């Protein structure tokens, strides 16, 4: 996954950590697209990411589109759950890529507030 521009590095809280601030409106679409692309292209990924790929296969098909719909616009509990599942997977997918980009070091991520992407 191309992380270019998605994570802005800021001063870390913990000594030795690297801290990044991310915007939901940027990371979620990018992560969802990359995860779907990885599935469709049968892209080989490492063990850590393959776990998330396996979970993504289990998502209800509508979850991918629902992920882009603000929660307040959904009324069906099933839709809300499916949407949340997709977004959580996208977050984990993105987090794993970011973690690997710093060679597995101590990572702090701050996901900024954006009501459209609230679970």
């Amino acid at each position, binding site marked *: 996954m191309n992380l270019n521009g998605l994570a802005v590095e800021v001063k870390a809280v*913990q000594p*030795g*950590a690297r801290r990044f601030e991310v915007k*939901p409106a940027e990371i979620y679409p990018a992560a969802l697209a990359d995860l779907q692309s990885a599935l469709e292209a049968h892209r080989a990924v490492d*063990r*850590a990411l393959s*776990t998330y790929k396996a979970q993504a296969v289990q998502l209800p098909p509508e979850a991918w589109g629902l992920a882009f719909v603000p929660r307040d616009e959904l009324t069906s509990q099933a839709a809300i759950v499916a949407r949340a599942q997709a977004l959580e997977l996208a*977050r*984990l997918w993105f*987090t*794993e890529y970011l*973690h690997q980009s710093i060679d*597995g*070091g*101590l*990572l*702090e*991520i*701050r*996901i*900024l*507030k*954006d*009501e459209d*992407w*609230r*679970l």
Partner: protein
Amino acid sequence: MALGWIWRAQSLPTNFYVALWTSATAPTADTNVMSDGTEITAGNGYTTGGFQLTPGATDYDVWTEDDGNDRALVQMKDIVWTASGGNIPSAGNGARYAVHTDDNATIANREVYHYFDLVSDRTVSDTQTLTLQNCEIRINES
């Protein structure tokens, strides 16, 4: 637990553990200690009490502040058991739950802080591994 560490300056455990339980008793919010559940049989690479974690950056290596959902998330490093000399568990039912505990010298009295559902009973064959990847602790602000 955390109340004492934060507001009463009580000492943190030196270590934490992740232990494996069978499906005999599902952990819930009312679960308090290890004796509330049934740990898998030790042997072949699984030690009673489980996998040891040390507080700090190495073993709890990813922190997320999720402002949009008013929560914090802490990921543990990958927890790996390798079966050697036979299956894990060495006898009885497979591992269905992982529980995160303190390091009380009496394992039965270890406090259970968090639990993770492995979805089905897991048995690992000799030389194979059971990996718990990126277990996350979620702390909600509201």
